[in-house]
Every structure is written in C-alpha cells, then in structure tokens.
C-alpha cells in the first residue's frame, strides 16, 4: 500500500513537471477560431505577365458583423505567396485547412494546371477531397452549392484533387473537370472540361454530359432527357431517370499500333416522361423505344469521341484498356499520343427500360 502511494506520488510529480511544458509548448501553434480566416473556396486565374490572380472566400464568424463572408483578392507569383499577402489585408489569420473548392480560370487551365495541383497537394493541411472546377469567365465567384447538386446527378463528373491528380499521373487516361460559366448574376454549369495531361483542350456541353458519363465509367445514378425527333410537329422527348450503367470495354488488335476498341454501355432506367403517342404498356413499343434511345445515345457518343480524338484527349481512358492488353515493352515503346487519334472507337449502348412509372 505504501509502495503504491509512493509510485502514485511520483507519477503526479512527473505530470506536474510536464504540464507547464506542454501548456506553453504549443503556444506558437495556438489557433483561436474567431481569429482564423478559414478559406473555403479559393480561385486561381492567370493575370498579366504570367502572374496569378488569387481570390479566397473566407466566412466571417463574428456574430456582430453584417457580412457573412469576406473576399480577399491579390495578384502574386505563386499560390502560397498570395496567402501571405492576404494576411496583410485582413486581421484574420488565413489558413487553408478547410478548403473545399479550388476554382481555376480557363486561361490558367489552358496554360496547364499541373504545378498548381502539385502545390495544393504538397500542403499537408489540404485534403485530396478538394473539388476542382474550371471557370469560364471570372474565377472569383462563389458557387459551392450549385456544384454539389450537379455532381450528385452524375451528369457532370465530380472532380476532386484526388481524381485530377490520379488521371493526370496515369499514362492511359486524361483528367476532366466540371466547367462553370458566369452568366451575370448566376453561375451555371457549362459542361465538362477535357484536358490533355494538365492543359485544357475542349469542352463537352452540359446537356451532353450524361453521354460522356455513360462511356467513362459505371454510373449508379443519372438522368437524361432525350430528343427522339418529331411526331406530328411536336418534339418527342423521353425522360430517362434513375440510370444504372455498367461499362464494358473490348480491345481488338488490328495490327502494329492499330487498335479497335468497343465501348459497351449497358443502361437500365425508368421512363418518367414520354411525349410520344404510343402506349408504353405494350412490350413492342417499349422495345422500339429502347432501340431509339440507344440510337440517340450512340450517335451522340460517336460525335463526342471523334471530337476527343481530334483534340487528342483520352478522357475515356482508352489508353488504360489498351495498355492492359499489351506487354510492358510494347506499351512503353508506343507513343500513345500518336496512336490514340487513329484508334477505331465504337460506342455501343444497350438500353433496358426497367419500368415506366405508375401510368400507362
């Protein structure tokens, strides 16, 4: 009993000696929430003379203040230098640990994003989940919520630092990112920006985003409104919802450096709206509709693929598929950028209407 008391006393003594050390030790890393400027959205754009215009949006926590967020903006030579400049503009300590969105201007995207993505990833306080968005126009706008919703619908792929850097560093696929347009008082989704390595090359308009999504990967949720031509002068639209898609790829080797790739999208979904004049409860009508939908999808996809080949962007990851049929030596000796535009790519779609709602 005496021994136990003794060791307890010794333990408390050690802790007592240690306490002031630990309490004062972290003084320099003390963070008081009210004094922090937690950057949630940061935007980067190319300014004159290859400098960068950086804008950061910082929420104001002070309950007495009428402003809910503060915009900080500066022109500097690097992303992180801008943060130092921000600290001079405001009484808050600007930190990037809560960054959710990184917006890049189109001009910067055309010049290449690689270095900036690297900088963001180097910072230990920035996570891989930061969303990457391209802005067609002034990159300094606040558009968090809009992006959140669109990405959930899957027609525009949600791109984070993780995905961008993953595809950028992979030799068989090119990265993509949503692109947003500044239309006066609102910001709207403009489409999907396709990159060649880290440089912006072309864009797929927002209404065609779903066709891109179907052939890039499996989808677990999506929606598409398809125009199937006209009937009695009225457009026939079918609204295909709750899309489930599984993508399959077949690679055929035609000769040295010549390939044929078949992309098969197996799509299931429900029809929520149909403006044609047939009754959907007839099996024949539905089968015809399935074929019509597939034809529209395939035509769109064909057009899209030929554009991508023209711009030499392999956003669908055809390279990965071809790489995985070759030997290491063959793949390394091949210049994929030269081969890619010549690859015969065939997009096939098989559509199944799971149900058509609760009305005939």
């Amino acid at each position: 009993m005496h021994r136990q008391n003794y060791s307890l006393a010794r333990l408390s003594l050690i802790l007592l000696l240690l306490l002031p050390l630990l309490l004062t030790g972290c003084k320099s890393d003390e963070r008081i929430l009210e004094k922090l400027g937690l950057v949630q959205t940061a935007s980067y754009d190319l300014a004159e003379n290859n400098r960068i215009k950086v804008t950061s949006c910082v929420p104001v926590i002070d309950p007495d203040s009428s402003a809910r967020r503060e915009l900080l903006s500066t022109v500097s030579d690097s992303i992180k230098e801008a943060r130092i400049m921000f600290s001079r503009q405001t009484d808050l300590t600007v930190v990037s640990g809560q960054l959710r969105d990184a917006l890049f201007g189109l001009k910067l995207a055309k010049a290449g994003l690689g270095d900036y993505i690297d900088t963001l990833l180097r910072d230990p306080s920035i996570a891989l989940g930061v969303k990457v968005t391209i802005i067609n126009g002034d990159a300094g706008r606040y558009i968090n919520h809009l992006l959140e919703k669109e990405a959930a619908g899957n027609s525009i792929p949600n791109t984070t630092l993780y995905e961008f850097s993953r595809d950028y560093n992979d030799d068989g696929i090119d990265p993509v990112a949503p692109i947003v347009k500044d239309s006066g008082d609102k910001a709207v989704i403009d489409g999907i920006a396709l990159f060649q390595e880290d440089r912006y090359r072309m864009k797929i308009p927002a209404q065609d985003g779903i066709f891109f999504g179907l052939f890039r990967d499996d989808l677990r949720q999506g929606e598409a409104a398809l125009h199937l031509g006209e009937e009695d002068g009225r457009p026939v639209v079918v609204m295909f919802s709750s899309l489930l898609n599984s993508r399959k790829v077949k690679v055929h080797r035609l000769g040295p450096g010549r390939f044929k790739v078949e992309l098969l999208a197996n799509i299931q979904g429900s029809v929520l709206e149909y403006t044609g004049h047939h009754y959907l409860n007839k099996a024949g009508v539905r089968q015809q509709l399935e074929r019509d939908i597939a034809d529209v999808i395939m035509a769109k996809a064909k057009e899209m693929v030929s554009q991508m080949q023209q711009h030499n962007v392999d956003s669908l990851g055809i390279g990965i598929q071809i790489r995985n049929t070759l030997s290491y030596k063959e793949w390394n000796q091949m210049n994929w950028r030269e081969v890619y535009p010549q690859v015969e790519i065939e997009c096939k779609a098989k559509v199944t209407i799971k149900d058509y709602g609760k009305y005939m």
Partner: protein
Amino acid sequence: MPEKLRPFHIAVLMHMTQSGIVIFTLPRNLADYFGTNGWLFLVPCIVVSTFNIYLISLVFRLGQGRSVFEIMEQTIPRPVLYPFYGGLAAVWLVFGCMIGKKYVLIFQMLSFPTTNPMVFKLAVDILAFLMITKGIYSISKAATLFFWLSAWMYLLMLWFFPAFRWERLTPFILKGGHNQFKGAMEIYSAFLGYELSILLFPYVNKNKKAMAGVYAGNLYLAVLYISLAIICFGFFSLGQLKKLLYPLLDLLAYIQFPFIERLENLLYGLFLFPVLVTVVMYWWAAQESVRRMLPRIKLSVLSFLLIAISYSISFIPKTLDAVGVWITNLGYAVTGIAFGFPVLLLLLLLIQRKGGEVRA
C-alpha cells in the same frame, strides 16, 4: 513466479511491435522501387520473415526455452559478450528512438507546424518510460488494449472500394522499378519487430503454442499490408502513388464528412498506439541486454537512463529526411541482428549439444 504470456497476447504484442511508422510510406516504396504491381514484393517478404521466425522457434526448441543470454553465456565467457550486448542495446535503443521521432515529426507537420517537436517527443518518451517500468507482462496487456483501440481503423479500407479499379493495377509484374536492393531492405524493415520474440523465452510457457503466436502476429500483419498495398495500387494511379510521400496519410485525408474536414489529424493520433508499442518493445529489448551487463542496477533507474540517452540522441537528426536515413541504416543493422542472432544461437546450441553439456 510472474505470470506467463499467453499465445494470443504474444500474437498481439508481436503484431503491434511490427506495425509502426513504416506503414505510412510502405505503398509508396513498393511503387517506387518495384514499379507496377509492387505489392507482389510483399510475398517474398512474408516468406523470409516466416523463415526467420522458424529459426527463432528452433532456438526456442533446442534451447528448451532458456533465455538466449543463458545460452550464450554457457559457452562464451561473459566479458567477451559484453561488447555484443552493448551493440545490441545501442542498435535497438536508437532504432526505437528514431521511429518515435519520425512519428512525432509527421505529427508536427500535420498539426503543429511551429511547435518544437522535442516537446512531443518528450511526452511520447514519458509514456514509453511508464510502460517499460511496468515490465513485459504489463506491456503486453497494454499492447492488447491498444490493439483493440486501433484495429477497427482497418475497416476504413472499405471506404476506398467505390473508387478502386483493378485496371489501375496494370497486368505488368514489377516493371519500371529501380534500386531494388535498397528498396527490398527498406520494405523488409516494415516486417521487423518479430525478432524481439527471441527475448521473450523466459516469459512464456515452454510449449509449441508460444511460437505459434509469433507466426500469427506476422501473418496478420502480412494480410493487412497486402490489402493496404492493393488498395493503394488500385485507388491511386501508379504515377500518383510514386509522388505521394505518405500515401496512407492521403488515404486518411480522403475520408470526408460534411461536418468535418481533415479527419486525418484525428486518425493519425490513433497510430500513436502501434508506434508506441514498437518504441517500447525496442527499448525494452535494449534494456534487457544492458541489464545482463549491469545486473545490480535498479530497473527503473536503468530505464530512465536509457530513455534519457535515447532522448538526447533524438536531438541530432532535425529533419524528416535525416530521420529517414537513420532509420534506413539502422534498419540494415536490425535486419542483420534478426537473422544473425538466431543463427549464432543455433550454432552455439549445436556445439553445446555435441559437447553434451545441455542442461535439462
């Protein structure tokens, strides 16, 4: 008679000793040194470590569970052995110390960038001191508790399944690596820790099950390493994985909830448990060797002295890279000991057997 360690506790203790700070860099090293499908290199590592454990179990069996120090001192005069003991103690002491320092430096980089890391190191060392003074049985009990506190984290691997793609693993086997000998040694150091089981002989029951615990701990570790490595190779692209210094940190940072960002700070804290056990076990091993030379010194005084020495040594390397170099070089020595020590003991045992001087 103090209580003996049970096989389950041995398994957990060995597993916790083996898993440490290396897990943060392991997938990156596999990708960098061995290229495509580098995780396959873990398989020979498992075979080699299992063989090493087999050597240790031979020592256990042939020596009939006697302490390894007794085995040596029976044939070799004590003064001759002292430099050897001193060498063992020095290597183990500094190895443990550098592992602790690396953990602290990464912790500092993540959470407290300007605080003096030696303050945290002191806190970790005091924890280790308190554990060591309680003896091996209490260490193993604490290790079991720590195991349950941190083992659930491996379930977080499920989080990465949606983004996992087998295509990214590529069909190429170990292509595009470099410096493979250095790489092999660095990767093998991820398995080190089991060799300390050679010092546990006096604390276990003399039956076969004791060594089964060591095998089990090693196998469990191997399963975890392989699954983590496969996830990294299918979640990140190869080029990306090579660029990430601490892929596990990035994995943890990818886990995101709407209400909290930078979860990795929290989760990294939990890795203190396996790291602490690793440090404690290496220091305990050093203490066991020194105690053989200075049998009269009080145990708590000895622990205090050893930890004070190691704390002063840990002031020397200041940067993460410098600590990495220390760990790599000491890793060579520790690997050498892991193989050399049991082989030496087996030779001695064979000599003793021939001379017919085996004591029952």
